[in-house]
């Protein structure tokens, strides 16, 4: 297949956005159908990635490489088993988001759709980039459409929320940029070759003292994006103020970028620093789990409840990643997809309610299920999926995560499981207050049940929830070899390094081509 399929998927939405510019702003339905069509075509293309993906190869596939600016800055993209599913998640959700915004966005439809499509290009670009420069370009460029989406179509405090979001994210990423420069210059000094290639950097053996700083810069950037506990304050603001579509994409995909960054960059590039900071990172994740859950319990605003539940769930994902074993890692990636689906769905559901009543306060609702029985069923499924009911997707992910964490450290697993308990608490309580009981508000009597369009975009999500909950093998099998490869990279390097640590005065060197080491896994990282 000579078609540059990955570039096509990445840039098709951008081309669509350019196309939309030339359509008159009053032809709203044409704009909507066109962008929906583009999103669906992108999704279909991305499915071919899944079917042509060879799960035996751990290294990136569909690689495209072209010279771009010189000095090591190349156009170099490819996907492995980790990024594959995140791309699929993005392309899967985008038509849903466009459908969900069909009537929600009435003002400035054209600009909204253009920014959505540009955002999609940015997100996919982040997941496919294998050149650090390219990665950074997409990582930053993606902020611009998100900035506009929150700032123009958001709620009353949107300007505060969007500036906070941009400044927080940029703070982290600029320091990461400095770290990237540092890696770049070290690589140049060590080899005399300019390179931003991620795989070249994988071969660098860095002095642990330098690694610490570089790791901190990378980790800060990703921790803000996830967000890990003390860096999370932008998230509730951004979520509450953002329009539904932007909330969905933010929760479902943008938060995953932080976790993806840890998997792709921070862990394999700086294994020694990882070992050093592992306890702290695990502690922060754990605090995030409990703090997010407790905060979610006391929220009065349905949207900020879901936002805090995101912090809690992402905490579990990060805890699983920091367990550094295959089960936990696969569970974490699987759980990223689950979280994308279920939290995305919950935001859609809050959006559906908001469109009818224009309030997000939980107390304004009550007894909605009498008026909206079909909607009630969907809400229940999505809510249970987020709680982690067996048979639905959340269960598989959480159980894998908890297994993996348990293998690494029992205490953390026991504390980490509180995410499930807390989730059951706040989500069921929210469901009860909104959907059940007597009808408190007369407005609710005028609610219409969800229409075909709304069913249309909820059904695919629910199908996926059941599928991923009952038969996860097609997903797990594709990611397995990439995950083991990643873990090898982290662990093998550590072994290599302890061997060579005697000779202390080297700054860095290029790893000699060692023979393939066996898949040794060190499980007890936390002890």
């Amino acid at each position: 297949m000579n078609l540059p399929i990955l570039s096509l998927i990445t840039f098709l939405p951008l081309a669509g956005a350019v196309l939309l510019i030339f359509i008159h702003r009053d032809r709203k339905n044409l704009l909507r159908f066109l962008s929906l069509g583009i999103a669906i075509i992108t999704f279909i293309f991305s499915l071919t990635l899944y079917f042509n993906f060879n799960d035996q190869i751990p290294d990136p596939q569909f690689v495209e490489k072209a010279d771009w600016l010189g000095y090591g800055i190349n156009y170099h993209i490819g996907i492995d088993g980790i990024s594959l599913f995140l791309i699929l998640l993005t392309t899967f959700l985008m038509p849903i988001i466009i459908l969900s915004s069909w009537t929600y966005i009435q003002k400035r439809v054209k600009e909204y759709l253009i920014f959505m499509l540009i955002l999609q290009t940015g997100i996919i670009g982040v997941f496919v980039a294998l050149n650090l420069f390219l990665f950074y370009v997409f990582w930053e460029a993606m902020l611009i459409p998100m900035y506009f989406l929150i700032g123009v179509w958001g709620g009353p405090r949107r300007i505060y929320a969007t500036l906070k979001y941009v400044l927080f994210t940029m703070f982290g990423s600029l320091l990461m940029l400095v770290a990237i420069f540092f890696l770049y210059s070290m690589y140049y000094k060590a080899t005399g070759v300019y390179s931003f290639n991620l795989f070249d950097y994988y071969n660098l053996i860095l002095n642990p003292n330098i690694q610490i700083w570089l790791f901190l810069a990378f980790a800060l950037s990703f921790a803000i994006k996830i967000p890990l506990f003390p860096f999370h304050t932008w998230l509730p603001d951004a979520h509450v103020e953002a329009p539904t579509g932007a909330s969905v994409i933010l929760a479902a995909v943008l938060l995953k970028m932080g976790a993806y960054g840890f998997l792709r960059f921070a862990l394999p590039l700086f294994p020694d620093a990882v070992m050093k900071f592992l306890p702290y990172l695990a502690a922060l994740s754990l605090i995030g789990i409990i703090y997010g859950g407790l905060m979610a319990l006391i929220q009065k605003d349905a949207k900020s409840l879901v936002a805090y539940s995101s912090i809690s769930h992402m905490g579990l994902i990060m805890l699983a990643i920091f367990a550094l074993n295959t089960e936990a890692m696969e569970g974490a990636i699987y759980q990223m997809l689950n979280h994308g689906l279920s939290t995305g769905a919950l935001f859609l559901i809050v959006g559906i309610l908001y469109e009818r009543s224009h309030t997000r306060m939980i107390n304004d609702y009550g007894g909605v299920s009498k008026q909206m029985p079909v909607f009630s069923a969907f809400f229940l499924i999505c809510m249970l999926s987020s709680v982690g009911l067996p048979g639905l997707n959340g269960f598989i992910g959480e159980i894998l995560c908890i297994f993996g964490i348990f293998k690494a450290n029992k205490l953390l697993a026991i504390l980490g499981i509180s995410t499930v308990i807390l989730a059951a608490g706040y989500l069921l309580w929210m469901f009860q207050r909104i959907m059940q009981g007597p009808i408190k508000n007369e407005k609710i009597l005028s609610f219409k049940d969800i229409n075909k369009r709304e069913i249309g975009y909820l059904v695919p999500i629910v199908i996926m929830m059941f599928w991923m909950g009952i038969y996860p093998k097609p997903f797990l099998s594709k990611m397995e070899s990439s995950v083991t490869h990643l873990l090898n990279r982290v662990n093998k390097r550590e072994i290599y390094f302890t061997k060579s640590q005697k000779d202390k005065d080297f700054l860095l060197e290029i790893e000699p081509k060692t023979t393939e080491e066996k898949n040794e896994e060190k499980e007890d990282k936390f002890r």
Partner: protein
Amino acid sequence: MNSFFALSPLLIIVFASLLVLLLDVFLKKENKNYLAYISLIFLVICGFICIKFWDKNYSYFNGNLILDNLSLFFIFILALATGFVILLSMKYISFQDVNYGEFYALLLLALSGVAIMLSSSDLLIIFLGLEVLSICSYALAGLKRTDEKSSEAAIKYFLLGSFATAFLVYGLALLYGSSHSTNISSIINFFVTESDLSIMALIGLGLVIIGFGFKIAVVPFHMWTPDVYQGAPTPITAFFSVVPKAVGFIVFLRIFTPYWKNALNTQAIFWILWVICVLTMVVGNLVALRQTNLKRILAYSSIAHAGYLLIAILARDNSSLVFYLTVYLFMNIGAFAAVIALSRKGKEYLELEDYAGIGFKYPWIGVTFSIFLLSLAGFPPTGGFLAKFYVFSTAVRQDLLPLVIIGVLASLISVFYYLRIIVYMYMKEPAREIEIAIENPALFLVLFFCLYGVLQLGLYPRNILVLINQAISSFF
């Protein structure tokens, strides 16, 4: 090669300027746009000559005037900038009641001063060019004669500028006294070979740095910038923000490249520049946060950009400096073009509140202005990102890590005020009605040229980089 040709760009510009002055007497008021066309034609010829003379290395006056590739590149670039400014002012002049003829003549004359400065490596001749540029600038700042702010700008610029010039001359005298030469390379040679430098020579060098620091508006020599930028006619502000800065940095480049190369006692000078650089970035960006006038915001932003450019000087990386200046030209003139677009007869809209809601009312102005602002803030995929990227990455390679960290944090601050303008344009409801004269083809031409420049330099600057490398290597 010693050839009279070396003078041709200079002569053409001066000739154009005199021709415009002469024709101004004979043309009726409604026909004065022809003056702009004539100036543009001569600028095109000048640009064409620059292309033709590439790699020729013509020189004249015993090598005191050399057209090496570096100077050709910048004469071309700054002639382009002047062309943009002329295009921007065609409507503006009639709207804002500025005087016609001398406007273009002074601009061209200022450009001739620039050409002298760019093509010389003798500090005394550079000084001559600087004076031509400066005196034209003082007059240009005050061309809105009925406007108090404009006159204030002119006076302020003139007084402070004369002081800076005095410093520069005194510094030159001291340098000549100690090194017995005004030629840059022999002065630097003196600095490098002399083991025991006299105080006189060091003070001389310091005073020269102050003199040029004033021109490129680095902190603490920046006080004139906001007031002059605010008071001067807006196209002239665009000119001020780009041209003197670019020239000043090229002179710095000519001074410091040989100096860094074999300097043993770089320490003092290095740290002075380091401190100036940090101050410039921090003060420029912090003060910009509190401004509500667009021209003042852009003034402080241009101060901050001088700081990033100084990083390139400190990192001893000429090509990233030249690239940054090139990108800076497009994005800054573009931003000013968008500001000029928001005006009508007798009225300019310069307060932030005026910008509320214009993003949707005037989509093209909104989009292009946003892109220029994002580029100034350093977002990919614009040229501004790549420019900062090159500067910062080479600085890291030169072990200037603390400077780079301060630089990126300063540019984080800058993100806030650039985005605040976009917030007003797109996210606030208009507080008052504004009405602008939309039919201004020359201005839109500039907007789109600059947009093209910013995006081309951000996405695929290969060809320009090749040219820049040729320019840099010719000068070594």
